[in-house]
């Protein structure tokens, strides 16, 4: 079995929100626990998918494990080295080994620089290669991301969405990273182009031995590219396991509803009955950091909680369900699953 490249233990990232003059002056404000005690690991050359609704903390995890934001507590070990408290200077050589692909297509593409200059900059951040080396590396990069030479002379604004994404990926590959956090790499693209990018990312992984933390709310894509999937809800992982298991034998009620809502949208026959009347609809209200549920955070929206006749254990403040091991690598945080 390949070795562990990234290990995250009990990671927390709390943002404080200050509203109004009084809270600014006193330095007190509400605390938003964007990531609230998350542990997982990635093995070399493997892809772990991170899914959940927007606002559940997926992106914050991605940014924190790369130390783009500082964690509030917890431990991040990259390639056997604890990087949780490294200084900026100490992090710098490590940065080239771990890179991020951002959701925003334009992020990292300076609008006033041509593609050639953008790639050249990326190639010369950590090294001082000769012009000939730069030229050959640039050709290699273009080939890797399947982009035409003629695009080198273009400005980002002259590129289509798919091309921008390819340039973004080439820029990341330029420093030869080992770990890539891909934050919604396809969500801003058309389905047809999404497929190109997904294929490209998988090819690159195969040829370059990359490791991906793949953040997305597109469930079929996550299932396709990942070996393992972690499902997040309100800053915590509620279920984790092999991609096939999570997709086909989900145990947590939240994972189940995620997948069934996909099936709903997919189903071809138009059901005209008001399926799932008021109760279910209310179950899908928006979640809210401001009124954290006591006990299980999913209880207020949980269909299982309703079906079981609102058992007290689900809302007991002292017993937020821990991740239980179900065997076969599957863990789930639910009293009843």
């Amino acid at each position: 079995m390949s070795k562990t490249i990234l290990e995250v233990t009990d990671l927390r990232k709390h943002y404080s929100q200050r509203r109004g003059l009084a809270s600014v002056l006193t330095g007190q404000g509400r605390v938003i626990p964007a990531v609230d005690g998350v542990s997982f690991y990635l093995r070399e050359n493997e892809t772990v998918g991170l899914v959940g609704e927007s606002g559940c903390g997926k992106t914050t995890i991605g940014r924190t494990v790369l130390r783009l934001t500082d964690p509030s507590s917890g431990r991040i070990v990259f390639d056997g080295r604890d990087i949780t408290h490294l200084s900026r200077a100490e992090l710098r050589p490590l940065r080239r080994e771990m890179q991020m692909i951002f959701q925003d297509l334009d992020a990292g593409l300076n609008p006033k620089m041509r593609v050639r200059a953008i790639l050249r900059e990326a190639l010369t951040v950590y090294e001082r290669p000769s012009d000939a080396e730069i030229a050959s590396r640039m050709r290699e990069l273009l080939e890797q991301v399947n982009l035409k030479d003629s695009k080198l002379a273009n400005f980002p604004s002259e590129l289509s969405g798919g091309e921008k994404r390819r340039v973004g990926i080439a820029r990341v590959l330029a420093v030869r990273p080992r770990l890539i956090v891909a934050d919604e790499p396809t969500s801003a693209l058309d389905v047809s182009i999404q497929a190109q990018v997904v294929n490209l990312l998988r090819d690159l992984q195969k040829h370059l031995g990359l490791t991906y933390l793949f953040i997305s709310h597109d469930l079929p894509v996550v299932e396709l590219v990942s070996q393992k999937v972690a499902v997040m809800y309100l800053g915590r992982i509620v279920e984790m396991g092999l991609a096939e298991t999570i997709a086909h034998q989900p145990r947590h009620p939240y994972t189940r509803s995620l997948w069934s809502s996909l099936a709903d949208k997919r189903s071809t026959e138009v059901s005209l009955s008001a399926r799932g009347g008021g109760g279910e609809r209310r179950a899908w209200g928006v979640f809210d950091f401001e009124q954290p549920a006591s006990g299980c955070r999913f209880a207020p929206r949980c269909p299982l909680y309703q079906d079981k006749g609102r058992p007290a254990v689900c809302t007991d403040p002292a017993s937020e369900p821990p991740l239980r091991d179900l065997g076969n690598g599957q863990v789930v945080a639910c009293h009843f699953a």
Partner: protein
Amino acid sequence: MDAPLLAIEDLRTYFYSRAKRAFIRSVDGVSLQVAPGETLGIVGESGSGKSVTALSAAGLVSAAPGVISGRIELRSNRVRRNLLDGLERYVRVEQQDGRVMAVEKDHRGWRRHAETSMAGVRGKEIAMIFQSPRSALNPYSTIGRQLVETIRLHTSVKGESEAKELAIHWLERVRIDSPRLRFDNFPFGMSGGMCQRAMLAMALCAEPSLLIADEPTTGLDATIQSRIVELLAELKAETGTATLLISHDISVIQRLSDRVAVMYGGTVVETGRATQVLAPQAQARHPYTAALLASIPSTETIRRKSYLQAIEGEVLDTIDVPRGCRFYGRCNRVTEGVRERCAGLEPPLAEVAPGHKLRCWLYPA
């Protein structure tokens, strides 16, 4: 099909690219029909002209030259006319071999005339919901106020308190919980899905004969998307409003549409009943539709972890429109027998089965 409620004929909407000194042929000869009570889904990649077609129908294209020719026939109970009637005289189009070479448009004259023509139609007969509901709502006004304003403007209910009751009724109809409390909410205090529901209430409260829904679920979370799709299906059954639904998400189109039009490069390349066009095994199918359907990860693809079938290349930019088929450059089904025609001559929209039309040389009429 019944007499259409909306008939768009040979619509052309162009824009001008100063950088390239050329026309962007966003909509290039589109004909579409929507029957009363029917949902027509328009699907295609971004840049294929879906949204511009819808905006043209609602008279919301503001950039010059904009709409330059065509007919938009609306036949509801209250309005029966060509919405572009009398506008020809503001435009002079120079054509060569059926291609537009130059456009002279008195834009101000057109706008003034078009505004008069659309008064009493937009919002009342044709209502629209957009992709980003939050940006379509006024951030400085509560959703209740905005709804009341719409009701008093577009319906016979003019009194403040009756309008408020009607507004609350509509908030309830779009399944917003505790509508009386939500009435006083500002858009920023509501989630994206909730804003889209409020937009829907605003669009439907005037009981329009046509609803244009432009990417109504894009940008929402997967779970919320399916709720909005469900709501649209329920409201369609309840109100019977004809809908022009635009989405690049085939699953949404599949779920809600009676008929489907597939657009590519500013033209309709395939149209027919949803069951004909999107059937898993179709007798005849445009290569572009086939490619769109294949690029969605199927259960089989995922199970075998095989590659997705991507459409190679990029969406046609409608500036340098090729002579032949617009999809020729990306098509993977060109055979030697048709190659010459594909490259040299744009195929016509030919009927391959009753109501099912294709624009492809592989399926000549």
